[in-house]
């Protein structure tokens, strides 16, 4: 579980080159541990390039945090890992992204399967306007993950347990998911993502719409989920990044500026821009 500690690889944080393969790990390490890998990823919205050639690797069972000022391309980059950008009219992705070494933009890849493997939790809790049970069961049913009702009950229960919501909702599974509190709704969304057995969970500012207590519950949950999943979390809350991530990547204006161990990024940033950001000079 603490493999990330051993990954204190020398990032090319020497200051000068920003757009090199700064996030990529040395090849030797890659074969076994690298879960997600991006190289020279550019995303265009129409003519505008929102992401200018980003490369990085994300290791199994680590929590990677993306930080950076608003509009710097964190969500854009995150959404290219499960091809959610495909649903945006005019969006175009170039470069290469692999999950378990497989190029996900290869024409042979089924987006539907990819999204089952790489789950997503959105900024605003967005449960379906259906029952709590149905919210969790929906994805599992789509992918045929439960053979019968009791299988499904099991999937729903274990997913809700993983999302730390079971005890709160076990007596009202038929109640509407939209009737839960904001924090519970977000955990329901996590359960929904977990129910299709992904191995990566992408979270786009999952706590930005939540109160501090709900936020801390989700943060604890992330630490818990790390045992089973690789997690990429976008946040503009730097304490949050510091609390629950293993490594942190700082983006600015569509560039990857710096990547490194969370502790190092927050205590000893190598880049001027990173330092300015974390000391609150902009953002």
């Amino acid at each position, binding site marked *: 579980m603490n493999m990330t500690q051993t990954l204190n690889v020398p990032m090319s944080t020497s200051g000068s080159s920003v757009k090199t393969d700064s996030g990529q790990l040395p090849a030797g390490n890659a074969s076994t541990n690298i879960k997600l890998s991006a190289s020279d990823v550019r995303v265009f919205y129409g003519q505008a390039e929102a992401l200018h050639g980003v490369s990085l690797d994300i290791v199994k069972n680590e929590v990677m945090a993306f930080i950076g000022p608003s509009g710097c391309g964190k969500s854009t980059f995150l959404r290219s890992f499960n091809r959610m950008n495909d649903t945006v009219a*005019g969006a175009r992705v170039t470069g290469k992204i692999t999950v378990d070494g497989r190029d996900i933009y290869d024409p042979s890849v089924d987006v539907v399967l990819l999204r089952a493997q790489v789950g997503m939790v959105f900024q605003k809790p*967005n449960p379906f306007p259906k029952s709590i049970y149905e919210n969790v069961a929906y994805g599992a049913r789509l992918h045929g993950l439960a053979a019968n009702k009791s299988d499904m009950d099991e999937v729903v229960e274990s997913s809700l347990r993983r999302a730390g919501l079971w005890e709160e909702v076990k007596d009202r599974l038929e109640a509407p998911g939209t009737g839960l509190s904001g924090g519970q709704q977000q955990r329901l969304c996590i359960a929904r993502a977990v129910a299709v057995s992904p191995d990566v969970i992408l979270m786009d500012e999952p706590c930005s719409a939540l109160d501090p207590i709900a936020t801390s519950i989700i943060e604890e949950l992330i630490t818990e989920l790390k045992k089973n999943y690789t997690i990429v979390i976008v946040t503009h809350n730097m304490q949050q990044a510091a609390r629950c991530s293993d490594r942190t990547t700082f983006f600015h204006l569509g560039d990857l500026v710096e990547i490194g161990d969370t502790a190092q990024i927050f205590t000893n940033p190598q880049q001027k821009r990173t330092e300015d950001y974390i000391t609150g000079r902009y953002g």
Partner: protein
Amino acid sequence: MNTPNNKGYAGIEAKVKASLKRRQREETRFRLFGIGAVLVALALVASLFGTILSKGLPSFWQSTFVLDVHFDPEVVQIGPKPVLEAGEAPAQFNERDLAWQMELGFVDFNQLLINALTKHIPAAADSPRDAMALITSGEHFALRDRVVADPSIIGKTLRLNLLADANVDVWLKGNIDRSLPDDRQQLSAQTREWADKLSADGVIKNKFSTAIFLNPDSRSSLAAAGLAGAFMGSLMMMMIVILLAVPIGVASAIYLEEFAPKNWITDLIEVNINNLAAVPSIVFGLLGAAVFILWFKLPISAPIVGGLVLTLMTLPTVIIATRSTLKAIPPSIREAALGVGASKVQATMHHVLPLAIPGILTATIIGVAQALGETAPLLLIGMSAFVSSIPATPFDQSTALPVQIFLWQGNELRNFFEGRTSAAIIVLLALMLTLNSLAIWLRRRYETRW
């Protein structure tokens, strides 16, 4: 804080109070305007409904004879109704049956009516023309139909309700100036005198009549003219519109909104749909006449053509309304579904569409109600023709409710048809209200799911 003030808090308070007063005055004024507007609208609606109801409701009750009609075998001289004999060829039986009915055609059923009237007005037999002017001319066919249905009534006496002539109805209801000279009255002096007498004797009663609901339009027997043909025509067209415009419109809207690439072709389509919605309905009538009647050779005056024309007219409404309903569904629902691996179609069918259904239903029903009230395009495809039968299929000749209103409104027997027109309007409005209540009910039903 931003404005310099040297009087401290008291100064600010005075300013706020002054502005508060102004704001409250504005608010009151605005509220009064609103209430005034609502009252004006209500008054207009009330006077509209008041006129229509006060004119239309009385014409559901018509002057009706309650007569004991003796089916005198002397008058109805006819052999027994033929029955199919064992081993007889159907063609042969038909021939005999036809001959029997033809024979029945020579029977003078008016004589039966005159005999019945004579019991109340002994002079009726002396001036049969004046007597027959009392009862609407269609009723002797009604007598014949009774004999055809059951020949055993020959020789019996039946108490029958027979509609009075339209002019008698007008006279008795006081819808014509009784002081007009003879040459400006529709009825002879003798007939008018008898009508008054029979009414006083209780032979003519003002009774609720189903004629307006059950009969088709008529020109020979005005008192019996009804809406049934127009109603069926409208109903068939409504069905056609629902069956065609709803699936096509909703499917196009879903495709355009959820699946179509955004490029100049779809932009062009969108602009065209919006323009189509603004095309005056009479233009659709022209199009229908050119395409469906001249080109596809569909029958003229038929509900099928009317339905197709109204479908064309309703489609843009349904598409636009459905699209705006779909637009209003939060994109987060789509993202959520796609995020757990639903395909585009699954996301739409499982999540977007169910949420859009109340809106789509409302839009559809309002579109259909609009089509139901449409007159202009129907005039151009021949649905303003006089049709005295109830259409059995959408390919038969027919009119429609609004067209019937238009036709009756122009009938020369104004004193009678003014009421009939309002009655038809009441029926049309009732149908509309039913549709709209249905829309509201469906909306409630689907919305309360969450």
